[in-house]
């Protein structure tokens, strides 16, 4: 396999920060033994109207927990749909939250991106509600009122490529 080295940047370059404000976060879980039936529910045509802006799932204690972020109206409807099913249990509904996300060259292959992100937010006293990093993207779910400050401090750490 060919290996290509990516130079260390004194200031990590990103393609820019994007935001999605005014979202609802829904946390729900299901026992691992019910994952097939929950999947069948998600596969139903009428759920196609829901367009989550962020999804993560974590496994723990024989359960899988999902965190979805959707626009608030969709979030309420999705929450109501989940309540009708016996496959999952809704644990939390948080509104309003916002997402700030960014990506950069080979972010998924380079060390130091997560540290630059989390240390910057931690130093600024910004609490992360949820985060998911996959491929070359970093997604941060924050309290709505923290989004401006987060973009400000992250813009000092990362360089937005021109």
């Amino acid at each position, binding site marked *: 396999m060919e290996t290509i080295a990516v130079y260390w940047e004194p200031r990590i370059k990103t393609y820019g920060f994007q935001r999605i404000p005014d979202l609802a976060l829904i946390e729900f879980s299901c026992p691992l033994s019910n994952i*097939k039936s929950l*999947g*069948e529910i998600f596969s139903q045509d009428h759920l*196609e109207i829901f367009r989550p802006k962020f999804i*993560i799932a974590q496994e723990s204690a024989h359960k899988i*927990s999902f965190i979805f972020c959707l626009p608030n109206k969709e979030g309420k409807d999705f929450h109501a749909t989940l309540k009708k099913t016996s496959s999952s249990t809704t644990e939390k509904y948080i509104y309003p939250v916002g997402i700030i996300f960014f990506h950069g060259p080979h972010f998924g*292959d380079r060390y130091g991106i997560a540290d630059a992100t*989390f240390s910057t937010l931690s130093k600024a006293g910004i609490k992360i509600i949820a985060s998911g*990093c996959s491929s070359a993207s970093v997604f941060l779910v924050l309290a709505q009122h923290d989004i401006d400050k987060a973009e400000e401090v992250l813009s000092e750490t990362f360089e937005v490529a021109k």
Partner: protein
Amino acid sequence: MEKLKIGGLKQSLELCQFDLRGLDSSEEIASKVSKLLLAQKINMEFLTFYPQRNNYHQLTFCISQDKFSATSEILRKEGSLPIGWEINSSEQAGIITIFPHQSAIMILGVIMSSWAAQSIPIYGIATSLSAISFVTDYKLLDKATKVIQDLFQMPEDHAPLKPEIRYQQSDIVKED
């Protein structure tokens, strides 16, 4: 029935996974762990963090399999994690990333149900703007891929499923 269209899929190289769980602490765990790994030049290829579950925090991440021992040692060293934090790890994990055009919930549902029917586990999920990544058992990556290929319609000129180039962070500083 017409197959659901997807833009493509990609397999990861061999990875391993760590799940760190513990009670709320004054330490910012995501920041602390990412700093510990940075010091060893270890990249997290996949990460989910959720500190809201009944005051329990969970940080899950995947790194290259050859960094498993070094990372275990770092995390288990006294003082690395707050007292009482639990570490669970899998020595082998792999990621399948799907590039959907739309219908993320439908794709999620179809994969959850069809993988469960084939006893293929899901250890983690994360989305980006245009992709969904599923963490599963590395040994089952080809089987999991086959299930997806049977269920979804992919472009005819699809890029190779397995990575052909490995990118690594160099220590050489690039000056503008």
